[in-house]
């Protein structure tokens, strides 16, 4: 079921959290809502779930064409997963997952045996079989998050909303769990919107990325689209490391001819460290002269910090270690710097 959100305004006192936001989440897709903290992404998610309301008179929320703006949270058929899980501590895993079914009015409530069957199916789905009698305190963070997911899925939601689902986990579990979520989504095909401030996470698993900044949506697109063709300097800077060069060196470094990965805006050139090419300095051979200031050799790529001779700007460059070895550079050497051409 698709989600369609139009013209949402939300203010908290003098602070504007959402300023006329429109958003469409296509049916069955996994969409990331990406932005820095305070950009309004969680507020938007909560308004879609019905846990918050847009400012009076603004906004319309539709699930597959049906207006749910005035429907209360429990009737929206939304599965919501909280950043800190919000599990019921006094209930076992089984009771947590069964909660949404057990609080249904008697007419709609499945029989006790069917509830148990469904809980066990869900436990299998989230790979937590055998843990049904545990209390949340006896589980690891990753397990708790999967219990929270199973609990949200138990009510057979039409839409799944996740608020920073991996935010409270350590780096390794985060990576495992997000890949798992991607495979899981492919399996269940539920329209899913998740909030994150981690661009790597969003770019890795989402079908579509929605980038928010200061109460507005900056850009919507597939991970490759937003990475290769950032619509605004904000998006460019948010999605990875970036060098901002003044336009006057543009002619020396070579103009990017509609090349993905580079953005020219307001007389500034935005370029990623790995899109810069280094060559031995030959006077008059083109390219901008720069002095090597630092060499960082740990990691798969060598990172260099160079200072442009003309403008004294510092530029970060990433080259492969083989390439660096070929150049034989040391701190203090002068190099030529150009934008890489060619690869897409």
């Amino acid at each position, binding site marked *: 079921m698709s989600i369609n959100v139009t013209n949402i305004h939300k203010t908290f006192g003098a602070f504007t959290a959402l300023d006329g936001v429109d958003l469409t989440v296509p049916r069955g897709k996994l969409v990331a809502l990406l932005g820095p903290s305070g950009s309004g992404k969680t507020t938007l998610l909560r308004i879609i779930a019905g846990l918050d309301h847009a400012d009076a008179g603004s906004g319309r929320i539709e699930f597959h064409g049906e207006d749910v703006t005035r429907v209360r949270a429990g009737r929206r058929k939304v599965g919501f997963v909280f950043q800190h899980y919000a599990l*019921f*501590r006094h209930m076992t895993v089984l009771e947590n997952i069964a*909660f949404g079914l057990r609080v249904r009015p008697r007419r709609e409530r499945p029989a006790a045996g069917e509830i148990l069957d469904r809980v066990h199916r869900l436990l299998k789905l989230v790979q937590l079989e055998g843990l049904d009698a545990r209390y949340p305190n006896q589980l690891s963070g990753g397990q708790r998050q999967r219990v929270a997911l199973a609990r949200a899925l138990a009510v057979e939601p039409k839409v799944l909303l996740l608020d920073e689902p991996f935010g409270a986990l350590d780096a390794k579990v985060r990576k495992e769990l997000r890949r798992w979520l991607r495979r899981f989504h492919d399996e269940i095909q539920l329209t899913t919107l998740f909030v994150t401030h981690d661009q790597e996470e969003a770019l890795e698993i989402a079908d579509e990325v929605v980038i928010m900044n200061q109460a507005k949506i900056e850009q919507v697109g597939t991970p490759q689209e937003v990475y290769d063709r950032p619509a605004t300097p904000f998006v460019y800077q948010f999605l990875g490391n970036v060098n901002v060069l003044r336009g006057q060196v543009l002619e020396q470094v070579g103009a990017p001819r509609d090349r993905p990965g580079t953005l020219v805006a307001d007389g500034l050139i935005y370029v990623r460290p790995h899109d810069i090419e280094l060559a031995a300095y030959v006077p008059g051979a083109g390219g901008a002269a720069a002095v090597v200031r630092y060499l960082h050799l740990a990691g798969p790529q060598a990172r260099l910090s160079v200072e442009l001779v003309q403008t004294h700007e510092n530029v970060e460059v990433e080259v492969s270690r083989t390439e660096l070895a070929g150049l034989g550079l040391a701190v203090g050497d002068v190099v030529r710097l150009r934008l890489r051409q060619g690869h897409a």
Partner: protein
Amino acid sequence: MSLAVPVPQSPRRVLPGFGLSLGFTLAYLGLIVLIPLAAAFLKTAGMSWDEFTAAVAAPRVLASYRLSFFASFAAGLVNIFFGLIVAWVLVRYAFPGRRIVDALVDLPFALPTAVAGIALTAIYAKNGWVGQWLEPLGIKVAFTEIGVFVALTFIGLPFVVRTLQPVLLELEPEIEEAAASLGANRWETITRVILPELFPAMLTGFALAFARALGEYGSVVFISGNMPMRTEITPLLIITKLEQYDYRGATAIAVVMLVTSFLLLLLINLLQKWSRRYHRI
């Protein structure tokens, strides 16, 4: 590969102070709590069994146990209910004068109990501010069992509120939102999610208020009227016996109170342990 002989683990703890603080705790508890209590038992031990039963099972004394335990228990129950509402309002809502209301809660702690007793009596007497409205309805508060119950409720309230407040503060609003988004209505959210989370703290608050009420003397003796067989509380009987220089009779009653209270509190503690079973790791 190391050839060093393994050094036996030193028994020293990383954080020192266990021995010192435990020693202090035992000495302090002994001095302040155990020795005076032991004295009561010793004094009683000098009585013959017949003397003892005559002192602790006289009809007037039995009537006072009934009143003391029932009124304290009822006051504790009422305080759980209203104390929870007060704590909830103080924690969850911001309103003008909240700090003042918050400070008011502590008044029963600070007020000399005799002052509280006299004030309550004045208000609930036949011609008092509240009493004059209850009188036509046939409800008498001052100088009845209800008066005792009112006084015990008054002094127990802060125990419940102060026990529940920190727990309520810690209770994430997200669990309520989770319940709501899973389809629970407000009533189900309260009874199935919030109250079970608060239950251990409610028990603690109840135990504190109940224990405090059992021992309360100052405020009750003014409002109860101290009628034998009807509105005498056990602490009052102990004082009466002391005034008659019947020290052994007084300590005998005290011992019965002590043992009963201890057993009840132990029971509450066990109940509490059970109610917090999900906290174990």
